[in-house]
């Protein structure tokens, strides 16, 4: 059918963009004036505008409210022109409750991109590159600003972590970890699954969650096959679903547990200047990871009760003592971790110390450039992550995020942190199933951070919340890499994952709220 062709989908996406572009633009009634030190502009436009709230102006900026909304004078353009006529070069006029032309152009781009991301007529990576292209073509920003986020420090940091995962895998440390845990696990199905899932889940805090999940399945599967556990039985579903869920939950424990954590921290820093350090993230998030990992396994256990008649055979493979290669790898990665943990002392960015570690890995012959080149997911790391960050930042500087923040703010006004937290958590956990985590973060954080500031809530809470809630991508097989890896063995149907995900997502989000209400309260975040 013609409507199934990629050309048609592409045209449809562009058409939606054009429609958004042609929609009437809300001018709003309030404008923020910055840099008008002598209040000259204010006095000159007092015929059409009044200052709100009335009274003394304390800060260097003030807000003007139009007296006759809809008139020719009640526009930002008029104020801009007036400032120019008065030779006030420093004055900047920003929209408060209206949408600037630039923000509207951005929204047209966003509409096209969201459709391209969801129905995928062109590869995701190309869509992600188009973010930079559209931003320049539609004059939302200049060339440099559009492309620079593709090499944002967080993108380099993510690459470091992926390269570390490659080296751990190549040196055989991932395998050793899998063997180590599996040997402790015994041969009762329930005990075995709980131990391996929780062990690898907590490990996922400090290593690539997909790598942890993959090694768990690869070591577990021969035992399952030997014990005669058939695909699509409850026992198989319990074992194969526990692992990805545990690894997803564990991933929130530290900044490098997953791109989602780094991206949330990066957006927080870009929009507010507040930094969550490596150490702080562990302090805030680790208790939640330690709690949710076993709870996730328990939920899978409750939904798919395993048949206890199966006994797993003894795991008899031994890797022997650690090789020099393994020791070298561990030493280098351990040193990088030490640098990350002590960033507060030396102040060198993670991407720099991380890449130093990568250089050391190649220098000490743990990795060859070929290994990195062939195994790194360049497209995802560079384009999808970089593009997502570019998109999120553009949402901020175009003014679109502020417009939505002002639009949605009345919904949460005066209700405190909890409503914002739950809103972000639920929305984040749902959106991340259908979209890349970074896209979810790019769409949500720029809007909710200003809302938090208006409400007087610490924005750190929301950045943490989003990074952690997007770990619960448990509704779809394509929600996150561990799900996809586990599903590829075809021991369960995709609907089996959705079924247990529907139970797990609300429970785990509740646990997250409890951790925030208790632990973060003790730490003084809220």
């Amino acid at each position: 059918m013609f409507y199934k062709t990629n050309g048609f989908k592409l045209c449809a996406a562009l058409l939606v963009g054009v429609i958004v572009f042609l929609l009437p633009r809300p001018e709003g009634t309030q404008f923020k004036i910055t840099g008008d030190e002598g209040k000259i502009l204010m006095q000159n436009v007092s015929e059409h505008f009044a200052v709100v709230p009335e009274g003394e102006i304390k800060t260097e900026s003030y807000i003007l409210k139009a007296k006759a909304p809809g008139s020719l004078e009640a526009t930002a353009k008029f104020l801009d022109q007036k400032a120019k006529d008065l030779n006030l070069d420093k004055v900047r006029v920003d929209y408060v409750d209206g949408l600037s032309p630039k923000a509207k152009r951005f929204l047209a781009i966003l509409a096209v991109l969201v459709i391209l991301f969801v129905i995928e007529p062109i590869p995701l990576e190309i869509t992600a590159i188009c973010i930079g292209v559209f931003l320049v073509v539609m004059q939302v920003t200049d060339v440099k600003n559009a492309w620079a986020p593709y090499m944002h420090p967080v993108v380099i940091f993510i690459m470091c972590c992926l390269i570390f995962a490659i080296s751990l895998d190549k040196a055989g440390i991932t395998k050793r970890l899998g063997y180590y845990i599996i040997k402790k696990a015994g041969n009762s199905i329930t005990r075995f699954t709980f131990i391996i899932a929780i062990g690898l889940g907590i490990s996922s805090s400090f290593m690539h969650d997909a790598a942890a999940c993959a090694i768990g399945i690869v070591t577990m599967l021969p035992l399952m096959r030997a014990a005669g556990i058939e695909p699509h039985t409850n026992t198989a579903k319990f074992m194969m679903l526990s692992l990805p869920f545990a690894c997803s939950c564990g991933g929130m424990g530290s900044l490098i547990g997953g791109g989602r954590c780094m991206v949330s921290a990066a957006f927080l820093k870009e929009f507010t200047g507040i930094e969550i350090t490596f150490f702080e993230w562990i302090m805030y998030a680790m208790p939640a990871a330690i709690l949710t990992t076993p709870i996730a396994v328990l939920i899978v256990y409750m939904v798919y009760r395993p048949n206890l008649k199966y006994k797993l055979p003894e795991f008899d493979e031994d890797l022997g003592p650690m090789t020099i290669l393994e020791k070298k790898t561990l030493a280098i990665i351990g040193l990088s971790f030490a640098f990350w943990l002590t960033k507060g002392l030396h102040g060198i960015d993670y991407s720099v110390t991380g890449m130093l570690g990568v250089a050391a890995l190649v220098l000490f012959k743990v990795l060859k450039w070929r290994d990195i080149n062939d195994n790194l997911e360049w497209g995802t790391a560079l384009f999808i992550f970089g593009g997502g960050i570019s998109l999120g930042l553009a949402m901020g500087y175009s003014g679109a995020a502020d417009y939505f923040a002002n639009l949605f703010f009345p919904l949460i006004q005066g209700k405190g942190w909890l409503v914002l937290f739950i809103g972000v958590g639920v929305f984040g956990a749902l959106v991340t199933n259908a979209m890349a985590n970074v896209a979810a973060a790019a769409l949500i954080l720029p809007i909710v951070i200003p809302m938090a500031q208006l409400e007087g809530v610490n924005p750190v809470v929301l950045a943490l919340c989003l990074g952690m809630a997007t770990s619960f991508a448990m509704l779809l097989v394509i929600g996150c890499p561990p799900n996809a890896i586990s599903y590829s063995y075809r021991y369960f149907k995709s609907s089996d994952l959705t079924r247990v995900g529907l139970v797990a997502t609300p429970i785990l989000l509740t646990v997250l709220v409890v951790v925030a209400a208790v632990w973060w309260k003790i730490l003084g975040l809220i």
Partner: protein
Amino acid sequence: MIKIPARVLIVDDEKDFVEMFSLRLEGQGEKVFIAYSGKDALKILENVAIDVVILDIRMPGMDGIDTLRQIKILHPIVEVILLTGHGSTETAVEGMKLGAFDYLMKPADFKDIKVKMENARKRKDEQEERIRQAEVRFLLRRSGDV
């Protein structure tokens, strides 16, 4: 090494041979399924994830080659080892061109059977792993996460 039982389907109308053969395979720790005709074999294949089929070429009704054709259409990844009597080597070659993994002369030495079966099973495992990896790549790209 942990012994992972292979699921073997023996298809032959000679009941004595089938019974003796299945006992030995079971003694090796494999999981054995039995069919006395091509039609029965296809029925079992529909319900059980068989790894290797050991298929006699000469059977009444649907003969070995026809059964092989059907197996390769319906379950292309399942490996088939043909059993031939004297004078039917040509048919065995034809069978291998149709996708059978290898053939064995009857009466076959059990050691031979074991080696060929293990190789057939290995090829199936490798093929399945390649399919799985291709699928993982596709799914991971869809998720757009690292």
